[in-house]
């Protein structure tokens, strides 16, 4: 299942949503807001998305993941809006009978999400400046 939400991510609910008595392994990934990147402080982040496309891309990710790995359940929850340091922007949980599938699938999902799902973040640096984060693009 996929979800885009403006609410705080409930990691326990994400975990529970993939649990299954056929599962021997559950892997949960949380992407959390760092207060320090290199030597710069972050006050907060703002996430926005192109929602109709983001939903289609997330659904395509789940479909492709299920074709590639023998997994039982997948949950991808992405938060939008204003996040403070320590809060999670994304949670991905995968359950599988054998753990290697849950690890590989979870890592592929977050790697691919961060390439292909149109969700962007703006760093609100503690020096008062704001900056959209676009890898490979200057300033």
């Amino acid at each position: 299942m996929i979800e885009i939400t403006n609410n705080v991510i409930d990691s326990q609910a994400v975990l529970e949503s993939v649990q299954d008595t056929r599962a021997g392994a559950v892997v949960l990934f949380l992407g959390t807001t760092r207060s320090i990147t290199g030597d710069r402080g972050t006050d907060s982040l703002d996430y926005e998305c192109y929602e109709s496309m983001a939903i289609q891309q997330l659904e395509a990710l789940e479909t492709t993941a299920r074709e590639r790995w023998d997994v039982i359940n997948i949950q991808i929850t992405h938060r939008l809006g204003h996040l403070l340091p320590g809060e999670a922007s994304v949670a991905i949980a995968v359950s599988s009978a054998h753990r290697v599938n849950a690890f590989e699938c979870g890592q592929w999902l977050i790697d691919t999400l961060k390439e292909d799902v149109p969700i962007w973040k703006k760093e609100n640096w503690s020096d008062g400046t704001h900056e959209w984060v676009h890898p490979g693009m200057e300033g």
Partner: protein
Amino acid sequence: MTLQIKLFAVAMQKAGTSELEVDCPLPATLVDLEQAILTTCPALTDVLPHCRFAIDDQFATAQTEIAADSTIAIIPPVSGGAL
């Protein structure tokens, strides 16, 4: 033909709007589309080469057809976040 272009993140910031109207004859390639956008909005000159296009909520390729009623969006590089 007038096309509506959705803008996000740095593209929206540079253009100062979340939607551009661009004049572009059809049929058009993605290169034609890029030219038409830059003619209307030169402020996107630095960022557009780093962006992808989405047509009807899918990443566009050279084979994607652009129609008068296509939903077109400029997709800046996704946040990447922690590497």
